[in-house]
């Protein structure tokens, strides 16, 4: 995978995805080693995303790589009106790999075509965030021991949630059964359901999940944001339906784990945190190993 970019999860074949996950497993055993010594990696965050940036920087630092970049475009040349084209062509000269977050959709694909070094998309607007998807896959495989034939519950905002769309598309490679639980206004868009129909995969849609929770292998929670509702009364009606509480977990499978891309607001009650089925903070840690695997793989080091 040397010198390739990672813009969209579809850029990688199933074999390549599994190779990244295997590599991430190796890094989990030995997260601190000096294999990126002498490498300079640019982290260009045209919009702030502290969590993703820290995860990348931690991943790179632990491997001895050096980081240049910015965490907010307001104090960079972008605020002077520089085009993305020029920023990339310049930064390109200073580094071996670019990690980029940008609010405009398609910006990462464009950057990958301009840059002579690999580009990792750390989120381009509402479009793609493939390193999140890979760390989700890693977390699922690690907790379930496999990716095949799982029953995945996706809960909350399924209409605008970029992470659930990407994860759904990726998991559709492994004969997954999906349960989509969302308020009417935030249902999974038709184009994604059509995608599953074409693959012949099973999915079910619900407005509530207390009755069916015992079937889940993975519960993937997302935030239901007030500003997504055209009618505030609708939000008030549904906001508590999509909150996971410890009392709801009694009859769940022993292997079941709860994932969340974070940040969480109130959709997972804090009383869940001490339940061994709560996995979202470990999931964030897995992000470091997965990103180590991606960076080293694209640099041709591993």
């Amino acid at each position, binding site marked *: 995978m040397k010198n390739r970019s990672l813009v969209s999860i579809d850029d990688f074949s199933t074999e390549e995805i599994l190779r990244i996950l295997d590599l991430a497993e190796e890094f989990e055993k030995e997260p601190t080693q000096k294999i990126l010594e002498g490498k300079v990696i640019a982290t260009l965050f045209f919009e702030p995303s502290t969590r993703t940036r820290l995860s990348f920087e931690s991943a790179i630092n632990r491997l001895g790589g050096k980081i240049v970049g910015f965490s907010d475009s307001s104090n960079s040349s972008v605020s002077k009106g520089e085009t993305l084209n020029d920023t990339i062509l310049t930064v390109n000269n200073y580094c071996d790999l670019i990690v980029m977050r940008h609010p405009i959709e398609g910006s990462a*694909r*464009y950057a990958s075509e301009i840059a002579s070094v690999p580009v990792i998309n750390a989120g381009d607007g509402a*479009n793609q965030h493939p390193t999140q998807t890979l760390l989700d896959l890693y977390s699922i495989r690690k907790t379930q021991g496999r990716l095949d034939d799982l029953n995945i519950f996706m809960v909350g905002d399924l209409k605008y949630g970029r992470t659930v769309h990407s994860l759904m598309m990726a998991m559709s490679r492994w004969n997954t059964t999906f349960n989509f639980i969302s308020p009417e206004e935030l249902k999974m868009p038709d184009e994604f359901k059509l995608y599953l129909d074409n693959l012949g995969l099973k999915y079910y849609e619900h407005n509530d999940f207390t009755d069916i929770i015992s079937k889940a292998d993975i519960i993937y929670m997302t935030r239901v944001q007030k500003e997504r509702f055209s009618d505030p009364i609708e939000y008030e009606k549904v906001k508590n339906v999509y909150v996971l509480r410890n009392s709801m977990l009694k009859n769940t499978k022993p292997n079941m784990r709860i994932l969340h891309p974070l940040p969480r607001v109130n959709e997972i009650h804090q009383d869940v945190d001490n339940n061994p089925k709560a996995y979202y903070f470990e999931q964030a840690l897995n992000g470091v190993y997965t990103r180590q695997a991606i960076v080293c793989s694209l640099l041709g080091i591993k």
Partner: protein
Amino acid sequence: MKEAKQMSVSAIQNGTVIDHVPARNLFKVIQILGLDRIDNQITFGTNLESKKLGRKAIIKISGVFFEDEDINRIALVAPDAKLNIIKDYEVVEKKVVVVPDYIVGIAKCMNPKCITNFESVITRFKVVSKKNVSLKCHYCEKITTQENMQII
């Protein structure tokens, strides 16, 4: 040669006739095919009566024979166009326009948050539906449907 019918646009000896172009898209066809930048003789008529299109345009280009992949680029603006290849005043071949698998340039991505609407990027699309043409943007991965399609 049969007499009677008078032609609105005079015949050519050798070249290509593009018929059944929607009148409103005549100049887009000219632009896409780069006819405004060549030295060949070109005659065209527009707002001609057409049972099928209402008002159509016709373009006759002397001494030019298009490759299929070039001519298919007009499929977005003139999907019903018919081509007659003329040699020595006779039609020697007829062609229709086929929607290609990929479209480079020509159309605008309808997603206002797409990079192609912010920087000078040549648009690129994969054609995901040919019947009711819809295009998937190579950059933002959003779909532009026929109703929302704007020609650059």
